[in-house]
């Protein structure tokens, strides 16, 4: 390891780092703006200047930009030299010439990197006598505010949005001191990663629009480590609360998963926690169908009474915590428990787990994904199903340019140099999906085909790699060429990666992807297989398993074999056909534990209000099989409580037999521990929630020590300051008192360090700047191979008995059930649409934007037509979450016709009901 000397102190630093990284990694304070651990160095801001000395004799030194200088062995430098200190103060002075003095009304105030750096460099007096430059701001959509006057021209935004995330509708305009960062014209930012600009911008140019409506300073937020609810990737988040509402979500750094970035579904979708339709009190259904809010005990008594006689089923949920699912499974017994997937989904999950558990299969982290040097994406539209994974893939194609840069002696962190030199070098990414995707621009080759063709294509690639002579194939010449090229690229790669998942709705696609991975395995290659799953705990729920499928559960209820069903955090109208559901719930006692109004609570006899992720502690298992703990951010309003707690209370109310099944479930840790004991695959699950390792009596505060208003915020209710809620479930405290662990790992409720009020402070908690958190990356990888070979659900293929067959599509802003309850996401989402091939549309007299009527099982939905030449004919693409009331099973037959009565919903708002 190279040794460098900074102000007379020697440090061992990582090979290949630059001086800024090296200094920050030692915990030193060195101001910077344009450098970003994930975006690299460009040398624009000149803020990280240090004095570098030629050799031991040199006393004069030369000012140099730390971010642009390799930390070579023997480098001597000074951060404190007068020349460096003076220059850095000048840089701030230059930046502040035009920066408005609007900190008091700026949303960035209090967590502004520019503020921090201004204080750090000691610039206090304004010498500039001129006028400040002003700009016109742009409307950028429902998610972001734009305040260009605050811009310090660090280029981070455009480098993230355009260079890193591949966005096309954002750039740096103009020149000199009139550089303008925005869109060519006003409009909604297209990229689903736009929200990261809030965190990437070192000051208040891009701020969180929903947050700014009910704004709170960072120091007044109560936050806790959390996990994103939005998809199966499991990005780490930092939600913040005040006055009983979720205010905003920031990224929580995780070196192996999300790094520094989230997608907008996760960031803004978490707003569902505040949605109007939240359930805050227990309720009973009257005979006339209306609901009475009742005290919890009354609701529990009614529910217990229903359970007293007859058989009780439990329907779990891929979005509920492991603890809640496990509590329900324990309560009703495994044979009466269904993990809550639609049958076809359960079949897909079985295929996923079977593939993951196969020999020599490595399931990659997103960090591994970024390191892949050849990729095949089979049947999964990752930009819509797992956006953060798509962002990682976008980095993977750069690997060849890094290699080319290394050959040309350009350090990998020298971003502009790598991009200029390496423009012609791209690691191959091959992609087969139903339609064109937002990765087309980086794909070596892309084909659009229905899932069965994608599966065939995958098998062909596997055949070629394994030098098997596969079955005769009906693939066209183009597809054969594609398969040959993909096989070649994967075979030549050192770190080939296969991506697929449940998005195509086809288990054959998943098996084909696994076949490709198996064919590549062996030899010198590091082969990865990444199978995306749809929801935040899909994998966990599936691994827990259950004794019955959803269809079996519904049949059992419909036929009176069971009398009562407890539905856990599951909107069944998305899982089964409406007619079947109605028949089932009409006969049974239905107890629903959920957080949000919907078809299922509306059909319940008893509703128990569940806490969301923000109001509870629990474990989710992401696509990697990583168990991750989310911690309660705030207690939640009204009666809402973690579902496992409702189930425990219910068990106790329902009598000894039930109570014994959940005996000892006092705290979430008890439930996790029981889960770990009972299921080998979850044996390490409780390691996801480590001890804080603090001296006795000390807790990790959820509130920064500048948290204000504690004595006043409830004064309109009572002038006596209420005691902060006690946290019985975690090492965290709902107060400012306590101590942050030195090596926090997961226990980092907010990122703050002396002098560093912004999110940049996270480097103070990293083992090295941009590296893993001290205390290790959060979560624990479960050994999926230990999963009891759950019964394999072979769902019967949907009957394609109508003129069109339904192909499942996903849309980043519409397909996640919970996110769509967030007001900002509803505004951001497209109008519900269906996709048709041009010839089919023409045949039906349907034009782009006109109405399409889709009918199945007596349910009709009306959608806007999108006509896409890449769509296969004879099929209609239906977007999950956009066909409210119509349950879509992949491949099922539907009737499609023109809808002359179609009225487009008002702009940008998804039709409700």
């Amino acid at each position, binding site marked *: 390891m190279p040794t460098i000397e900074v102000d007379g102190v020697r440090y061992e630093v990582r090979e290949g780092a630059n001086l800024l990284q090296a200094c920050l990694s030692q915990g030193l304070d060195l101001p910077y703006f344009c450098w970003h651990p994930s975006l690299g160095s460009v040398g624009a801001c000149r803020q990280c200047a240090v004095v570098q000395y030629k050799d031991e004799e040199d006393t004069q030194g030369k000012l140099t930009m730390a971010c642009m200088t390799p930390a070579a062995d023997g480098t001597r430098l000074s951060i404190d030299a007068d020349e460096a200190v003076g220059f850095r103060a000048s840089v701030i002075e230059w930046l502040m010439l035009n920066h408005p003095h609007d900190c008091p009304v700026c949303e960035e105030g209090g967590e502004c990197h520019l503020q921090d750096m201004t204080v750090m460099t000691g610039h206090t007096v304004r010498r500039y006598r001129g006028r400040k430059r002003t700009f016109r701001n742009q409307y950028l959509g429902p998610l972001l505010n734009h305040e260009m006057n605050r811009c310090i021209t660090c280029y981070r935004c455009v480098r993230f949005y355009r260079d890193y995330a591949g966005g*096309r*509708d954002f*750039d740096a305009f*103009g*020149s000199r001191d009139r550089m303008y960062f925005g*869109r*060519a014209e006003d409009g909604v930012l297209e990229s689903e990663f736009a929200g990261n600009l809030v965190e990437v911008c070192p000051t208040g140019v891009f701020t969180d629009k929903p947050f700014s409506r009910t704004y709170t300073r960072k120091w007044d937020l109560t936050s806790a480590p959390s996990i994103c609810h939005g998809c199966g990737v499991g990005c780490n988040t930092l939600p913040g609360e005040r006055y009983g509402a979720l205010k905003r979500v920031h990224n929580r750094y995780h070196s192996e998963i999300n790094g520094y970035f989230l997608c907008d579904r996760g960031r803004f979708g978490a707003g569902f926690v505040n949605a109007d339709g939240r359930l805050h009190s227990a309720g009973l259904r009257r005979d006339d169908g209306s609901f009475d809010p009742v005290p919890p005990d009354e609701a529990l008594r009614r529910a217990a009474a229903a359970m007293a006689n007859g058989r009780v089923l439990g329907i779990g949920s891929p979005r509920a915590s492991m603890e809640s699912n496990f509590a329900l499974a324990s309560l009703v017994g495994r044979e009466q428990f269904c993990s809550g997937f639609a049958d076809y989904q359960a079949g897909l999950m079985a295929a996923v787990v079977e593939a993951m558990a196969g020999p020599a299969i490595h399931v990659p982290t997103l960090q591994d994904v970024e390191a892949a040097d050849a990729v095949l994406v089979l049947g999964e539209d990752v930009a819509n199903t797992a956006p953060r994974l798509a962002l990682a893939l976008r980095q993977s194609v750069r690997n060849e340019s890094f290699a080319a840069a290394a050959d040309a002696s350009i350090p990998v962190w020298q971003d502009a140099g790598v991009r200029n030199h390496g423009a012609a070098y791209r690691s191959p990414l091959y992609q087969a999906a139903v339609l064109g995707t937002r990765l087309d621009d980086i794909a070596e080759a892309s084909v659009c085909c229905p899932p069965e063709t994608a599966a065939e294509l995958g098998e062909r690639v596997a055949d070629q790699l394994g030098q098997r002579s596969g079955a005769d194939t009906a693939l066209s010449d183009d597809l054969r060429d594609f398969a040959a090229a993909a096989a070649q690229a994967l075979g030549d790669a050192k770190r080939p990666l296969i991506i697929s998942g449940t998005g195509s709705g086809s288990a054959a696609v998943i098996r084909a992807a696994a076949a490709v991975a198996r064919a590549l395995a062996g030899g010198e290659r590091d082969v990865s297989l990444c199978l995306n799953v749809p929801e935040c705990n899909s994998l966990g729920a599936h691994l827990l398993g259950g004794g019955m499928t959803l269809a079996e559960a519904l049949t059992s209820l419909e036929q009176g074999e069971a009398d009562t069903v407890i539905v856990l955090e599951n909107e069944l109208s998305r899982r089964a056909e409406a007619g079947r559901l109605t028949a089932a719930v009409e006969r049974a006692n239905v107890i629903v534990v959920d957080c949000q109004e919907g078809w299922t609570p509306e059909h319940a006899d008893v509703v128990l209000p569940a806490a969301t992720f923000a109001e509870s502690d629990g474990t989710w298992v992401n696509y990697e099989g990583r168990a991750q703990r989310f911690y309660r951010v705030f207690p939640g309003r009204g009666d809402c409580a973690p579902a496992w707690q409702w189930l425990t209370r219910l068990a106790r109310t329902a009598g000894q037999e039930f109570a014994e099944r959940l005996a000892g479930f006092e705290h979430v840790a008890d439930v996790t521990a029981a889960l770990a004991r009972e299921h080998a695959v979850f044996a390490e699950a409780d390691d996801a929630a480590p001890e804080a390792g603090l001296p006795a009596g000390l807790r990790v505060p959820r509130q920064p020590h500048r948290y204000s208003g504690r004595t006043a915020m409830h004064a309109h209710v009572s002038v006596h300051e209420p005691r902060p809620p006690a946290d019985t479930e975690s090492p965290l405290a709902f107060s400012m008192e306590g101590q942050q662990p030195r090596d926090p790992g997961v226990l980092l409720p907010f990122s703050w360090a002396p002098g560093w009020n912004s999110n940049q402070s996270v480097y103070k908690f990293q083992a090295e700047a941009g590296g893993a958190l001290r205390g290790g990356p959060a979560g624990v990888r479960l050994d999926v191979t230990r999963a009891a070979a759950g019964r394999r659900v072979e769902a019967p293929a949907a009957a394609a008995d109508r003129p069109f067959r339904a192909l499942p599509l996903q849309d980043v802003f519409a397909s996640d059930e919970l996110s769509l309850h967030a007001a900002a996401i509803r505004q951001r989402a497209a109008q519900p649409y269906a996709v048709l091939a041009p010839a089919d549309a023409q045949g039906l007299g349907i034009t782009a934007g006109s109405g399409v009527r889709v009918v199945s099982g007596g349910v009709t939905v009306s959608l806007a037509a999108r006509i896409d030449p890449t769509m296969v004919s004879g099929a209609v693409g239906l977007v999950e979450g956009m066909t409210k009331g119509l349950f879509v099973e992949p491949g099922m037959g539907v009737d499609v016709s023109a809808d002359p009565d179609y009225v487009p919903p008002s702009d940008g708002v998804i039709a409700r009901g």
Partner: protein
Amino acid sequence: MSELINPLSEEEIAAIEAEAAHLPERRSAAIEALRIVQAKRGWISDESLGAIAHQLGMSIDALDAVATFYNLIFRQPVGRHVVMYCDSVSCYIMGCEAVKARLCHELGVEPGGTTVDDRFTLLPTVCLGACDRAPVVMVDETLYGNVSADAIQELLSDHD
């Protein structure tokens, strides 16, 4: 974008394609393409910008980043003739301020302005490489050297 009605003339498209043909990347013809269209139309409207971006297969934003960076690409309408007076050092020494003052007076506009009859737009320019003849003024493609304030009226009369 595919539904965009391309308002470029065949002649413009041909000229742009000729430029793109000898470059390794189509987008590298951006500046030439802007110049070609501006030569015909005087300036680059949003519609022209969109059409050129479409022609070169680049985003409007990326092309506008180029268009707004360069001095000689006009994103606002200009008069039939563009009058540029050099305000760089040699012309400054030789009295360009008097030339500028007279131009403003004669045209009734400040630098950056366009006369009400759309005949002239007045712009400052950096050194035109004719410092031995300072001060210099360029009207469209015609360069005038040793310009005195008194010669302005006549100089302008060359351009209808």
